[in-house]
Structure formats: structure tokens, C-alpha cells
């Protein structure tokens, strides 16, 4: 079985993003970018499937700017076999919407015919939490989102999902789109020898036109603003003072 993992290049989770003064956008110039943390978990899961003999090949795909090459190289260094970069934007500030990403991924999947797609549950920049579900709909495949456990058994997979009430297990028909949550695994770091080896692995470059997909956005970004700031910072000296402050504020 082949596994396909879409990976997105996003602002590093340790960086606090700033909104540009003119409210047109956030400022991504010269900030550290990394692989979306959920996608690291998806790549790790794919590698574990391969190590367990349940998968033969791992193909990683990114849609975005040319620099997403680095993200794909990271996935290759972790243990993916081959990469496809779909260059769909020139500027790091141009993000491609999940619907367009899903359409491109669908075309790639029609060619590659993977048995499973492992995607992140959400990208930590735009937090849409949508691409995997949209892809599954376009393919007419089963979907299992927010996975904290994936057990593949022949033509089915049993997936445990993190939901509002706790956990839910469902059994999905393969091929399936699975989106991964935080507790699925702990991704490995790439070792130096593997980083070197990854440089020689195959990375194909494509464009949305190769797949006949129109990536023009459906949502127009009107403006980006700073959220309302909170005025915090008052310290109390003791539990007694805390209790009296809370009483004063009518909180208890």
C-alpha cells in the first residue's frame, strides 16, 4: 500500500505572528517557518505503517510557495520516500484555500492511487480544519478525522477519534482519508545522515495548471486586525486577597 501525506509549510508554532500596520495581512517576512506540527504527526504515522510492513511507499505533497521544498525535505529526512511540490504561489503571504488544495490533491491521488491519506487535522496558521474532509468528499472516500489511534486491518481501518465528549471509535472502508490529532504519536527528529540522504530523494515540481485546477480564492480577505488586547497583570499577595478581589468583582 502507498501512503500519501499532504504537508503544509506554516509559521513556526513558537512564533507570535504580528499584523501589518495597514491591516492588509500578517507579517511573514523573515519569520521562522516549519512543517505544520500536525503534519509531522501524519508523516510519523506513515513511517510507522511502513516500519510495521503495512505500507510500501510514502509520498509527501505540499501545495504552496517554492520554499515549501524545505518542508518536503524535512519529511523526506524523517523517512518519506518521495515528494511532490505543487508551486501555486509566489509570495509566502498567498495561501491556497483548502478547497483548491483538496482539488489538487485529488488529481495527484487519481494518479498515485494511495491506499490511505494521512493529513493534519488543522494547519496552525489559518486553523480551517477542512482540507482532509474536503478531499475525502471529492474522492468519495470514507473519512476519519481527529485520529488518536489508527489500526489498519485489510480493507478496513478502525480509527479512534478525539471528539467533544471524549473518544469515538469508527470503522472505515479503505481507501480512507484520516486526519491526525495531537495524541496519535510523537514525531521523530530527522538524524543528520538521514538529512543528507534526503537531499538525494526524488522531489517532483508541478503547477496547479498541470492538474487543471483553478486556485483563485473563494474567500476574499477584506482585512486582518489585531485582536482586542487584554489588560491583565494585576498581582495579588495572598489567597485572602484573591478571594476578596473575586468577591469585589462579583465573580464568586
Amino acid at each position: 500500500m502507498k501512503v500519501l501525506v499532504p504537508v503544509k509549510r506554516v509559521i513556526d508554532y513558537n512564533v507570535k505572528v504580528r499584523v501589518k500596520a495597514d491591516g492588509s495581512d500578517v507579517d511573514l517576512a523573515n519569520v521562522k517557518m516549519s512543517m505544520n506540527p500536525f503534519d509531522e504527526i501524519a508523516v510519523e504515522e506513515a513511517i510507522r505503517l511502513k516500519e510495521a510492513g503495512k505500507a510500501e511507499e510514502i509520498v509527501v505533497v505540499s501545495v504552496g510557495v517554492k520554499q515549501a521544498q524545505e518542508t518536503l525535505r524535512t519529511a523526506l529526512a524523517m523517512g518519506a520516500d518521495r515528494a511532490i511540490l505543487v508551486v501555486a504561489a509566489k509570495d509566502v503571504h498567498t495561501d491556497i484555500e483548502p478547497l483548491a488544495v483538496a482539488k489538487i490533491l485529488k488529481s495527484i491521488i487519481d494518479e498515485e492511487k494511495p491506499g490511505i491519506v494521512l493529513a493534519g487535522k488543522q494547519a496552525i496558521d489559518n486553523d480551517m480544519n477542512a482540507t482532509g474532509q474536503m478531499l475525502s468528499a471529492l474522492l468519495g472516500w470514507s473519512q476519519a478525522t481527529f485520529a488518536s489511534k489508527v489500526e489498519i486491518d485489510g480493507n478496513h481501518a478502525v480509527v479512534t477519534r478525539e471528539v467533544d465528549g471524549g473518544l469515538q471509535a469508527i470503522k472505515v472502508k479503505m481507501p480512507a482519508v484520516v486526519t491526525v490529532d495531537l495524541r496519535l504519536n510523537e514525531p521523530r527528529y530527522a538524524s543528520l545522515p538521514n538529512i543528507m540522504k534526503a537531499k538525494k530523494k526524488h522531489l517532483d515540481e508541478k503547477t496547479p495548471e498541470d492538474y487543471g485546477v483553478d486556485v483563485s480564492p473563494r474567500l476574499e480577505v477584506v482585512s486582518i486586525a489585531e485582536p482586542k488586547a487584554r489588560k491583565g497583570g494585576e498581582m495579588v499577595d495572598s489567597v485572602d486577597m484573591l478571594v476578596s478581589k473575586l468577591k469585589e468583582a462579583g465573580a464568586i
Partner: protein
Amino acid sequence: MAVLLLAEVNNGELAFDATAKAVTAAKALGDVTVLCAGASAAAAGEAAARINDVAKVLVAEDASLGHRLAEPTAALITSLAGDFSHICAPATTDAKNIMPRVAALLDVMVISDVSGVVDADTFERPIYAGNAVQTVRSKDVTKVVTFRTSTFDAAGDGGSASIETIGAAHNPELSEWVEDKVAESDRPELTSAGVVVSGGRGVGSKDDFALIERLADKLGAAVGASRAAVDSGFAPNDWQVGQTGKVVAPDLYVAVGISGAIQHLAGMKDSKIIVAINKDEEAPIFQVADFGLAADLFSAVPELIEKL
């Protein structure tokens, strides 16, 4: 303009608070028709009909709609979509599972986690862990939207909408339910509670997390946790508050042994009053706390429980 709103129905019961908050958000967009779908949904439909400002309720009962599997639920919504300009839901894990699928089937974008409605096409939503607020205008014919419930007040309970029973759509039979692992609790539900007490890595162990729960019970609060506390096994996954967990905005949020990472703040910084207890005076949580107490939680929390 007409809005179809997917009600939050769990095991036949309406989640009134989440649904009524989404009704408040949706009514600015047009007449609201609420869809209650499930293996049993009639009682939920009756409850939904009592939400103020609901024009009509549709009840779809079918075994295939039990457990809110994405494929049959999305197929049902898509079959109804022609009559509506907007298809909405509260941004619960169920809706986040279903609505993007609906959007893709309709060849439109989904607009997730909307925190404000500007007009029928224009919406505000937090991005980058709440460090920026994006205003987007949709060019799609049908708008598929999920609402972040913590930013809307619940509509009242005094309506009497008409109820119509409808059939399920064709079930693609791609997935089946196996089991739910849901802990029963007498505490209020995290996303609708008036008070939330959360514990972080600083609490140190699952056993010591009982201290957080005791404080919560004293305050009649729901219990939350940081990701670190969940990852370490101190607390179950459904207690996680944050960018990738639940978003809460209670009247009072008490953060104990939580440092205040941006991902955590994203889930609680709209709370009315924030209290932080942390032994590190420099912890970033103090920057957003209305009242900060720099103290060891193992002495401060028992004292607080006693003095409340």
C-alpha cells in the same frame, strides 16, 4: 435569504446551549431552519422548536444518521442545500467533521470558526492562534459556516416553530460506528460553563489533578486542562482548552500550573475574569490574568478551597 442550521444532537438529545448560540449568530443571515438529525432526533426537534427566532425545524431520523457519521450526514445536508443561502452549525467537533465535507460536495469553501457576522457574505474569524482576526468575504453562492459558540449569547427558550419530519439521504456506507468512550460527569459542560478551573503540567500527576477537580467542584465549575496535562495523562483529551482543543469564554477562568503558551491562551483569553496561580512570577499567563497569584499551587489551592 434562508439559513439551514445543523443542530448539535448527541444520542437523541439536543445540545441546547451550543445550538442556541449558533441560532443567535445565524439569525442575522435570514430565516433559520434547524435540522435535527440522528438515529433518534424527534425529542431534539421539539427542544429546537422552542429556541427563540427559529422559523422551522426539520427532523431526520434514521439509523444511518446515528453517531453523526460524516458521510451520511453530509449527504443529507447536501440534498437539502438547494433551498438555502447559508448552511451553518456550531463549531463542535461533529460539525468540524461534517461541514467541510458538505462544502466540498457543493464546490464551495467552508468558513470555519466564525466569531463575528459582518453581513450576509462577510465574516470575522480568528487565525494564527487568535493573534489576528481575519475578515473574509465569500464569493460562493452557498455559504457554509461554523460558528465559534464562545462569542455568541444563546438565544432564549420561548419559541414554537413548526416541525417537519424528513427522510434520510442515501447512505454511502463508507463507515460505521464502533464505540464511544465517554466519561459521565455531573459537572457542567466545559464550553458552556460559567466557571472553568484548568490545570497544567505544574499539577504534576494524575493523582494530584484531583486537587484541581476539588477546586472546580467547590466553584461549581467545569474542569479544563492544558495540552501538556493531557499529553502527560493527567486529564482526558476532551478537557483540553486551546487553539487545537476547546475554546471557552466563562465568567471566571482559573488557570493553575499553566504557563500561558499562545496555543493555550487562544482557547481562554476571551474569559471575563482570568485568575492565574503559578509559582513562576515571570509566567506569561500573568500578562493576561486579571488576578495573578505567584505561589505554589499545592499550598495555594487547598487554602483557596477552604476559604471559598
